[in-house]
C-alpha cells in the first residue's frame, strides 16, 4: 500500500535527518571557525537561519499546494498543504525560539518590535489562523477552501519578511547569504550553513511524508466508517 510505504519512507527520512542533525551540531560546535565579532553565540546562526528558510519553504509549499487544491479539488493536495503548514509552524517556532535566545545575548533583549521579528511572528499567527479556519466550519470542504485562501494570502507575507530588513531601519542583520551579489561569508561557515539547510530540509520532508501518510489513513478511515454507517 502506498500510504504505508510513504509512512515508512517518512520515518526513514526523519531518522536520516536526525542523524544529520548530530553531524551538523558537530560541525557547528567543533568544525567551523568562530565568528570574530560575536564569538560562540554566533553558532546559533546554523540553526536559526536554516530553520527560517525551511519554514519559508514549508509555508510556500503549503500555499502552492493550496492553490493547486483550489484548482483541482484533489483532497491529496489539501492534505499536502495541511502537512506542509504544520511543518512550517514547527520550524517557525524554532526560529522564534532561537532568535530571541540569540537576541538576548547579541542585543541584550529577547524581543523588540522590529519589522522582521514582528512579521515573522505574524507569519506564524497567520498560519495559526489557517488551522483555526480549518476547524471552525461544519462543512469540512468549506474549511479546506477557506484555509487554502488563508495560506495563499499568508505566503505573500514572506517576501515582506525577507525585504523588511532592507526597507526599514532595523536591528536585525541584513542578508549575508541570500542577496543579489552572492554570499559574503567565509567558506567554512557557508558550508556548515548549507549542510544544515540540507539536513533541515530532509527533516522537514521526513515529517511531511509521515504526517501526509497519517492524514491519508485518517481520510480512508473516515470514508470507511461512513460507508458502513449508511
Amino acid at each position, binding site marked *: 500500500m502506498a500510504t504505508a510505504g510513504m509512512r515508512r519512507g517518512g520515518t526513514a527520512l526523519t531518522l536520516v535527518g536526525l542523524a544529520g542533525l548530530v553531524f551538523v551540531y558537530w560541525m557547528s560546535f567543533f568544525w567551523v571557525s568562530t565568528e570574530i565579532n560575536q564569538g560562540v553565540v554566533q553558532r546559533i546562526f546554523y540553526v536559526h537561519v536554516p530553520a527560517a528558510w525551511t519554514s519559508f519553504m514549508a509555508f510556500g509549499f503549503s500555499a502552492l499546494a493550496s492553490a493547486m487544491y483550489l484548482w483541482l479539488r484533489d483532497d491529496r493536495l489539501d492534505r499536502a498543504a495541511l502537512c506542509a503548514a504544520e511543518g512550517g509552524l514547527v520550524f517557525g517556532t524554532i526560529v522564534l525560539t532561537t532568535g530571541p535566545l540569540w537576541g538576548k545575548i547579541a542585543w541584550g533583549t529577547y524581543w523588540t518590535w522590529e519589522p522582521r521579528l514582528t512579521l515573522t511572528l505574524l507569519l506564524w499567527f497567520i498560519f495559526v489562523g489557517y488551522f483555526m479556519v480549518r476547524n471552525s466550519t*461544519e*462543512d*469540512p*470542504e468549506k474549511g479546506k477552501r477557506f484555509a487554502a485562501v488563508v495560506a495563499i494570502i499568508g505566503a505573500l507575507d514572506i517576501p515582506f519578511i525577507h525585504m523588511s530588513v532592507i526597507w526599514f531601519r532595523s536591528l536585525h542583520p541584513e542578508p549575508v547569504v541570500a542577496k543579489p551579489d552572492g554570499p559574503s561569508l567565509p567558506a567554512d561557515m557557508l558550508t556548515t550553513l548549507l549542510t544544515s539547510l540540507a539536513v533541515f530540509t530532509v527533516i522537514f520532508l521526513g515529517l511531511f511524508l509521515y504526517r501526509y501518510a497519517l492524514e491519508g489513513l485518517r481520510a480512508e478511515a473516515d470514508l470507511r466508517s*461512513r460507508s458502513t*454507517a*449508511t
Partner: protein
Amino acid sequence: MTRLVLEAKGLAREYGPVVAVDDVNLSLGEGEFLTVFGPNGAGKSSLLGMLGGAMRPTRGHVLIRGQRLAYSDVEWRHQVGILSHRGFLYGQLTVEENLRFYGRLFGLTDLDQRIPERLERVGLADRIRFQVRQLSHGMRQRLSLARALLHDPDVILLDEPYTGLDPSAAGVLRGVLAGLRDGRRTVVMVTHNLKEGLELATRVAIQVSGRFAWEGTQADVGGEAFERHYHRVVEGRS
C-alpha cells in the same frame, strides 16, 4: 424524445455524516415537468439546490443541455430560475427595488415595463412601494415567485411554491405553472401537496432518505389511489 435539458448523474450530497441526497439520476427534456414528493428531510431541497448550481454536489454532477455545470461560468445561470424556502429578498428594499436589483443582475433592460407587469400577474401591483419586511407572508411568497421568473428562465426549480399562498393566489400560481408548460421549459417542483403536485406533472418521483424510491409518469398515477401509493412507498423505504 425531445432534447435533453437537465440531467443529473449520480448526484449525492453529504453534510458531514448526514447523507442528504444519495445517487440521484435524472434526465429531463424540453417541456417536461417533474414533481418530487417525499418526507421532511428526504433531501428534496438539497437536490434542487444542486440542480440550480447553488450547492456543489459531494459526488456526481449536473448537466444543462449536455454541458456540465461549470461553477465559474455564469452564462448558464441566465437559463435557470430558483424559488427556494428562503426568498432571497432584502427586507429593507421595496418590492420594486428588489426586482429591479435582480433584473439588473440578469442584464434585463426592459425593467420599467417588466416589473409592473409581473407584479400585476402575482397580484402585488398595489404594494410596489412597500418594503419587503412590511409584507405579509403570502405576499412575500408571491414576490419570491415573481423574482424567480423575472428573467423568463428555461429551467425552473420550485421548492414548495404554494407555501403561504391564499386560495386565489394558488389559483394564479396554477395558471402561471400551466403557462410554463409551453413545450420550451423544464420544471422541477417540490411540494407536499399531492393534489397540486400531480395536476401539472408529466413525471413524478418520490424521494425517500436521499434516493428516488419511486419514479413514474402521470399515467402510472391513478388519481385518488396515489395517496395510498405514496404512503406505501415512504413506509417501505424509511
